[in-house]
């Protein structure tokens, strides 16, 4: 039984998905003509190109030898992006110091050598440091601490 190249197959499908999404969204913008390109002209051209590339990548993957995707650090990337999202949320509702603590604690958990006391110490140190450097030092317009209500 022939096994396809999963890596390229997925890459092709990703391109295809992006191409289709952009093409669909671009339908709302007027095409114009080559002589007077509307806002939809170039995006539609590129979307079609991306769709073609996606299809070609996927087809070629079906015909080529299998290639494993390799190990995926799903927990790591999820925790990292979650940490960044939580930072963005916390900075709006709790202030910079809170956000830094949240970011450091959540992201540290992504490491396999995670130890809570160490991460806590780092989080607090960085929160103080950020407050001093970004808040007072560079004068970024970010509230250091913001309380609810």
């Amino acid at each position: 039984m022939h096994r396809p190249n999963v890596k390229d197959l997925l890459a092709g499908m990703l391109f295809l998905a992006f191409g289709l999404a952009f093409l669909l969204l671009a339908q709302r913008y007027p095409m114009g003509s080559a002589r007077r390109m509307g806002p939809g002209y170039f995006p539609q051209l590129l979307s079609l190109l991306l769709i073609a590339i996606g299809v070609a990548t996927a087809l070629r993957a079906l015909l080529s030898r299998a290639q494993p995707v390799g190990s995926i650090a799903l927990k790591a990337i999820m925790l990292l992006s979650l940490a960044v999202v939580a930072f963005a949320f916390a900075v709006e509702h709790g202030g910079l110091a809170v956000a830094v603590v949240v970011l450091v604690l959540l992201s540290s958990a992504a490491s396999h050598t995670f130890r809570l006391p160490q991460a806590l110490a780092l989080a607090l140190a960085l929160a103080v440091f950020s407050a001093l450097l970004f808040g007072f030092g560079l004068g970024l317009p970010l509230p250091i601490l913001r309380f609810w209500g």
Partner: protein
Amino acid sequence: MADILANLATGAATALSAMNLCYCLLGVLLGTLVGVLPGLGPVATIAMLLPATLTLPAESALIMLAGIYYGAQYGGSTTAILINLPGESSSVVTTLDGHAMAQQGRAGAALATAAIGSFFAGTVATFIIAFLAPPLANLALRFQAPEYFSLMVLGLVASVVLAQGSLLKAFGMVVLGLLLGLVGTDLTSGTQRFTFGLPALSDGINFVVVAMGVFGIAEIARNLEDKSRRDALVEEVGGLWPSRSDCRRMVAPILRGTALGSLLGILPGGGALLAAFAAYALEKRVSVNAAEFGTGAIEGVAAPEAANNAGAQTSFIPMLTLGIPSNPVMALMIGALIIHGIRPGPNVMVEQASLFWGVVVSMWVGNLFLLLLNLPLIGLWVRLLAVPYHLLFPVILVFSAVGVLSLANAAMDVYVMALFGVLGYAFLKLGCEPAPLLLGFILGPMLEEYLRRALTLSRGDPMIFLARPLSAAMLMAALLALSTLLLPSVRATRNQAFAE
């Protein structure tokens, strides 16, 4: 000749002002610092520190960013030699002989060779820029929309050809990058495109956000995959001075590396990475000590280190004169120029003479700083290597997140960065190179603008790109670059070069 001296004098006036000297020094130090720390390449480094430069005057910002770039470059070589861990991709080849030298107790000599080679190459490259930039910019002043369009196509094709791995996937990444670059308000019609009605997206996605996500967060995730405890086994540095025979042996490789690196840096899609690989391969072929390569040959350090610095610097030429980025770092520089309200292109040299020449002269100054500072500071850099990664990456994340937040004081940018982090990691896992994506992203709006103008000029006839000789020549060059990849022998060399 007198012109060139006058230009360099203009530049010196800018670059040697006390303020700009400070920013150059600061850039070089910060760049080396982050370059020494493992797991953050020059693209992520520059993206991370770029928000800090936005409050500076344009020339100081660019001088500092350039300093960060070659500082990071140099820091990467230091880790390559000392712990066999390339701080960034262009110092991968340096690990081969540089680390072998370190294991023989000659780390100091290897570091000194890298520093001397880089400084010499940097000096030569500065003069090459001074000589080549004015005629190139003059040529470019005659460019109209069709020429610019074709030039950008050539640049994008070159970035695809030089990308690692599958050609088709690299093409996909370019096109996806172009599309993502179109998000925001269309300048001609005022239409909001792909913004999902979010006001935060109406100015488009900031390039720092994309670069931080794709090159920063995704890289961190990849580093965290590695469960093996990294042995921070730092080799003894030993005496810094190369012996007399070392000096004799490094002269020719440095000269060849500088020449090759300067040439490859100018080419679209070129830059430090290609230069270092090519110089190592060349040296292995021509050196009388070829048998020693891989076991600590000083030529194997001197040539690629000279080449990557020369290439890093001459890659500024197309960026500064034509407004075309030849690699992701230059794409970030273009982005920085645009933020400062400077439209990249041949006009920069005329309208922003002090900025242009100031940056050129500051490159030489920065290289001097590197030579003078880094050898004495080597002990400090070595100590930094001992910082464990699990303490390091949260710090990187904090700086990235605060940096991105400070761009427009918008939490939305941080959310988008997280999204690009996940996307970037998926690309890494699927073997899709992020560099072409970033180039496409920066060039997207410009490419559309020039296509639109060219087609208006020709009343909708696409043949205009072939009817104009310069434009046709550039498209032919792009086609030629693509077709070489179809030759089996070139393909094999390309695969081999990336496999090493």
